[in-house]
């Protein structure tokens, strides 16, 4: 069980690092968003799953209060999963509409797209 938790933590830390490294490595906003959103969400899922596994392991050994830990961590995971892709989409849309063009783009279907005036 301890080894299982170590493996979960290792995968999580690895992918989180990859996500932050992608921020430095990629050339423009959109590709950076790719790296940052996907990798940090995936890594955070694994680190939080490690916490959940630890909590349920504690419940199995009869330690008081670990069930609360696991359930609250799961709720944090749900909040993260719901909010992260939506935030990335909002940033991408804001960036594109404010005039940041994707670098080295092969095709840009967004050219000539008419913004409708929303009220």
């Amino acid at each position: 069980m301890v080894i299982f938790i170590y493996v979960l933590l290792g995968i999580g830390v690895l992918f989180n690092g990859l996500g932050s490294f992608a921020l430095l490595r990629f050339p423009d906003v959109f590709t950076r968003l790719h790296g940052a959103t996907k990798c940090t969400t995936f890594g955070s899922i694994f680190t939080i799953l490690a916490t959940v596994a630890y909590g349920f392991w504690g419940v199995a050994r009869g330690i008081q209060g670990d069930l609360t830990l696991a359930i609250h961590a799961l709720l944090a995971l749900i909040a993260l999963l719901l909010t992260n892709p939506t935030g990335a989409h909002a940033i991408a849309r804001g960036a594109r509409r404010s005039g940041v063009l994707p670098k080295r783009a092969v095709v840009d279907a967004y050219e000539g797209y008419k913004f409708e005036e929303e009220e």
Partner: protein
Amino acid sequence: MLRSLTTGLGALVIYLILTMESGSLGLWSLEELIVGAVLALGVGLIAGRVLGKGEADYKKLLNPRRWALFLVYLVGPFFFAMFRANLDVAYRVITGRIKPGIIKISPGLKSDLAASLLGNSITLTPGTLTVDIDKENNFYIHWINVRNPQPSPEEVCGRFPRWARRIAE
């Protein structure tokens, strides 16, 4: 009415999860149950229409079969695609081989719930990022490795539109 009740029910469930293990009545104490019910009712009355637009969306939200399908989708194809996405991004971070572009697909979804589900799925799966969506539910997608400037929906996001239609339409 259905709107307020659904929103209140969601608020109540979250409150009960947060206050689990607090007392004697099952997992909760009596005070927590009363406070939770009152707060959920208030939240439902004030923020009655946050979860969807029409009554039809709320009927979908109350359907347990759709929730079961959603859970199957979440741990099955979605998680697998997310794993592949991360290996893909890892490969591109290390080698730096990218060929980006913004493309347009029209998956032909009708309801807003299905469109938001598909948009979030696209953002977290291999090499794609939703940039914008217009009135006819056409998606503008930033693709990190463009193989075809005018692709079909299947080429970009696989079987996801079919899942979104089955879950939320």
